[in-house]
């Protein structure tokens, strides 16, 4: 090693070292001369004897230099300089090739980073491979009851190793007297952090003492990111209190920076003891199998009928874990079976036995959703890289061919074959290194953009490009360079100066080199991607052009939860009035309405209802219920077609029970008959609580952009339902109106947390975010593939022209006009284009059927898009052929023939 360093040092100072060596030897020589002179020889004789004794001056000097280790390294440097200079002489060629490589490698870098971050990264805890997830027969966590967790915690084999956690609901947070804002929390058991073996960044983490039954502490551990963004990394944050859903909670610690929860994509801002669900009035996701109407939150810790916790276990060294798990779970099963009448249903629960599955990554819905996309993208990237390599290799070879005379001359002047080959290789390596650097930079820039498109939930938690990935990419770049240089280098070793100068054959005469099939394949890929992108875009446009049944631009909505804000049910009505008043007096506001669910909210209530007729009971399943105040329909811009609207009087306790129904529901229940005056209820037989239909409402597609208008009935807001959606119709600029509204409404009850105020148009855009990302991504890959295919044609035909230049020269010499030569080449390109486009067209037309069972379910065959894509493919081929065609037409027959 030190020898190597010494050599390197000598190399870096090689000018000085050479001079020094020369001087040393000169001195030596002079001393020899002097010695001989003193022995009585004449000056000339002394010099001759000295030369004899010293040895051949030149060869000795070279030996010494070689000993310095410069020769190889120096000639490599020389080659490097030569390669760089050669490339700089045709900057467009070099830049073009670097750009292709950069695009290919950039996409590779970005997708590799994403795929690794989302699919391959383990949890940032010590020895993640020890983590076992409790699953049922499905490939997802099996939620268990709190007592099951307690039994696991107390079992000697699993004691201290249980990591139990709830879903991550959003609560209303108030810091000081500020307005309420959202915070994602997770309720976890006492050994959650200790079993994960995480150390706090500051303060302490939660312990079993925080969650002791009857003595639950109102404490929280917050994430490092939340601490940074919300508390500006305030060191005094420990011991500070905030209010969650109105209750005071103390911050006792900050989790380490790398830890953002055990489920990628479910961001957790704060971890709380399990026992806090009751005081904070939070109901995490749960499946409840009980014969009670309502299981109070206070009993969730102790009942086996509410299953709301997912469990990871840090595996102990030995022991029969499966047996322990089943014995801890059995009481839960028995409690559930005790309240189920149906034997088949009881059997179903018994069959869904929990088991441990190794889960070093934890479980994440985001990861599962991304898997298909990640796989598809990886395949696409592999295809892009292969095509990139094939095309750039051809182009590089083409470039060498164009310079074969120069090479021949160099060869004739005495440069070795090895030297020429090394130099060709060096050129490829320089290109791939430049492309690699640019590509990695591009990839680093591209990764966060792709992340927000593909995994919006997890975008902030993903690791970026790190040393391991960089090393992998570096290796890829070197391999790429070696591969690219292999063909030109090989060519150089076979070059004979005589043959070159005589313009004799190089490589296979007149072949396309990378082959017709590969070019066609590239064109197919391009047509396919462009076609799919076009089809998706057209589909999206079609979906968006369907009238939604409500006004999109002028309606602003927000969602809130009065119960979570600590407002008792009896005050909801009054708060609603005050909110309405505040909104109405805000500038630009035309109408204000409230609803229990609202449009594009993701929140839906469905009921089975029974329409009464003369002796007939018409049952409709999955009918959607909405509770609205009298102004809701007007504010939303939903049309009342017949009958009357709901009034304030209808919401009174003793008022006659009335309802509105939507067109679709009316059609399902009555066909063309008049629905007004008909009655329906929730019970098949009991008609006492029936509603009378007093109005018919136009359909509206409130469940999402791609969902049809659901069958709906509207009831007055008030009886048992609280408003959770505020709808404001404004005139003029919605953005300006929104700011004033936000301020005014926020001041009414500061404990209420509102979701973002968005127009329905904006909600629509968010709804199609994923579709839009898919369109963009496919279009991006399509453009890339088209560009690559164009270059492929260019390279292949360019090669063809270069190797056939003699033939072309002969044709020209015997009188063929250049225009015909030109046409021949373009025709060749068009031929490739027609084959590729046709195949691509057919494949793209069949694709929806091939894929329908797999992923892009919304894909239809859009003939217009396919036709356009096929034309794009054809155009790419012809365009790619133009440059070689021009070159062919410009062949100078005289110059070429004279060289014979």
């Amino acid at each position, binding site marked *: 090693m030190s020898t190597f360093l010494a050599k390197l040092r*000598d190399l870096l100072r090689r000018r000085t070292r050479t001079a020094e060596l020369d001087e040393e030897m000169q*001195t*030596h020589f002079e*001393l*020899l001369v002097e010695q001989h002179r003193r022995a009585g020889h004449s000056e000339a004789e002394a010099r001759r004897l000295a030369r004899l004794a*010293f*040895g051949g001056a030149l060869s000795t000097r070279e*030996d010494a230099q070689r000993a*310095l280790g410069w020769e190889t390294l120096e000639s490599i440097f020389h080659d490097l300089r030569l390669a760089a200079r050669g490339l700089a002489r045709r900057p467009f060629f070099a830049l073009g090739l670097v750009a292709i490589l950069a695009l290919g490698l950039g996409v590779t870098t970005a997708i590799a980073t994403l795929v690794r971050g989302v699919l391959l990264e383990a949890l940032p805890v010590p020895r993640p491979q020890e983590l076992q997830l409790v699953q049922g027969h499905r490939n997802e966590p099996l939620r268990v009851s709190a007592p099951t967790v307690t039994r696991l915690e107390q079992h000697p084999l699993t004691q201290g190793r249980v990591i139990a956690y709830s879903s991550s609901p959003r609560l209303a947070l108030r810091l000081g007297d500020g307005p309420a804002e959202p915070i994602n929390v997770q309720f976890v058991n006492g050994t959650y952090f200790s079993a994960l073996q995480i150390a706090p960044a500051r303060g302490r983490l939660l312990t079993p003492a925080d969650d002791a039954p009857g003595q639950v502490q109102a404490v929280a551990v917050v994430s490092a990111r939340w601490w940074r963004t919300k508390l500006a990394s305030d060191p005094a944050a420990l011991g500070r209190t905030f209010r969650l859903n109105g209750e005071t909670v103390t911050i006792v610690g900050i989790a380490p920076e790398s830890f953002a929860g055990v489920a990628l994509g479910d961001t957790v801002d704060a971890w709380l003891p399990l026992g806090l669900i009751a005081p904070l009035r939070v109901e995490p996701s749960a499946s409840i199998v009980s014969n009670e109407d309502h299981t109070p939150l206070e009993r969730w810790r102790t009942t086996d009928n509410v299953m709301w916790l997912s469990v990871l276990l840090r595996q102990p060294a030995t022991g029969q874990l499966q047996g322990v798990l089943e014995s801890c779970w059995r009481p839960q099963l028995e409690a559930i079976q005790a309240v189920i009448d149906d034997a088949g249903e009881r059997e179903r629960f018994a069959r869904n036995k929990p088991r441990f599955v190794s889960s070093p990554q934890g479980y994440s819905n985001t990861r599962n959703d991304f898997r298909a996309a990640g796989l598809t993208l990886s395949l696409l990237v592999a295809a892009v890289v292969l095509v990139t390599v094939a095309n750039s290799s051809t182009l590089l070879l083409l470039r060498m061919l164009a310079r074969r005379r120069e090479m021949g001359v160099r060869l004739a002047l005495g440069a070795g074959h090895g030297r020429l080959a090394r130099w060709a290789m060096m050129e490829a390596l320089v290109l791939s290194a430049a492309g690699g650097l640019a590509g990695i930079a591009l990839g680093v820039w591209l990764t966060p953009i792709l992340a927000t498109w593909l995994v919006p939930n997890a975008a902030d938690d993903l690791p970026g490009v790190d040393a391991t990935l960089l090393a992998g990419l570096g290796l890829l770049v070197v391999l790429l360079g070696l591969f690219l240089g292999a063909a030109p280098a090989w060519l150089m070793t076979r070059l004979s100066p005589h043959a070159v100068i005589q313009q004799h054959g190089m490589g296979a005469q007149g072949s396309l080199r990378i082959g017709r099939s590969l070019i066609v394949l590239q064109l197919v890929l391009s047509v396919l991607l462009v076609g799919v992108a076009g089809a998706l875009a057209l589909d999206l446009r079609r979906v968006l052009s369907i009238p939604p049944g409500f006004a999109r631009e002028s309606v602003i909505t927000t969602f809130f939860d009065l119960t979570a804000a600590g407002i008792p049910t009896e005050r909801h009505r009054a708060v609603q009035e005050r909110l309405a008043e505040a909104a109405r007096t805000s500038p630009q506001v035309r109408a204000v309405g409230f609803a229990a669910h609202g449009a594009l909210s993701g929140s839906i209530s469905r009921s089975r209802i029974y329409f009464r007729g003369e002796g007939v009971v018409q049952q409709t399943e999955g009918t959607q219920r909405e509770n609205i105040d009298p102004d809701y329909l007007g504010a939303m811009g939903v049309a009342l077609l017949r009958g009357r609207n709901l009034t304030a009087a209808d919401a009174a306790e003793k008022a006659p029970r009335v309802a509105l129904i939507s067109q679709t529901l009316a059609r399902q229940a009555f066909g063309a008959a008049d629905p007004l005056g008909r009655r329906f209820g929730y019970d098949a037989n009991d008609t006492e609580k029936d509603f009378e239909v007093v109005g018919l409402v136009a359909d509206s597609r409130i469940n999402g952009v791609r969902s049809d208008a659901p069958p709906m009935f509207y009831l007055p807001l008030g009886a048992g339902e609280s408003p959770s959606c505020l709808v404001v119709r404004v005139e003029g600029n919605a953005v300006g109106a929104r700011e004033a509204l936000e301020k005014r409404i926020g001041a009414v009850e500061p404990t209420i947390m509102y979701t973002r105020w968005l127009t329905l148009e904006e909600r629509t855009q968010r709804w199609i975010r994923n579709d839009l990302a898919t369109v963009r991504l496919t279009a991006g890959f399509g453009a890339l593939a088209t560009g690559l295919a164009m270059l492929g044609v260019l390279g292949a035909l360019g090669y063809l022209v270069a190797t056939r230049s003699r033939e072309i020269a002969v044709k020209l010499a015997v009188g063929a006009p250049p225009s015909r030569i030109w046409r021949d080449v373009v025709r060749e390109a068009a031929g490739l284009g027609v084959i590729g486009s046709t195949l691509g067209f057919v494949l793209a037309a069949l694709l929806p059927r091939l894929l329908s069972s797999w992923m892009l379910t919304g894909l239809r065959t859009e003939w217009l898009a396919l036709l356009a894509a096929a034309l794009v493919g054809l155009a790419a081929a012809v365009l790619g052929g133009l440059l070689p065609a021009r070159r062919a037409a410009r062949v100078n027959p005289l110059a070429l023939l004279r060289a014979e």
Partner: protein
Amino acid sequence: MKDGRTELLQGTLDLLILRTLSQLGPLHGFGIARRLEQVSGDTLSLNQGTVYPALVRLEQRGWITSEWGLSENNRRARFYRISAAGRRQLKEEVAQWERVAALVRNVLTAD
């Protein structure tokens, strides 16, 4: 060579240079070459220039160090000195040489 002078065995020049430097202390290239010729009693056929590649090699391996000084004729000359690592190496090479020499002698003198 016709006059019975001995060609140097491959690889032994390094050994001889190290030995010379360890015996005589710092020397320049000319001094080393002259010493080698003196010791061999002019029976060694050595292109004196070849000591330079050897000196570069030895220095890169860290077995000798060098510094500039003045030669007898008042010219700048580089003086080489054996290092601690060089002495260890010399010891090893001498031992190795003796083993080989003994082996060769045994083979040649065996009846």
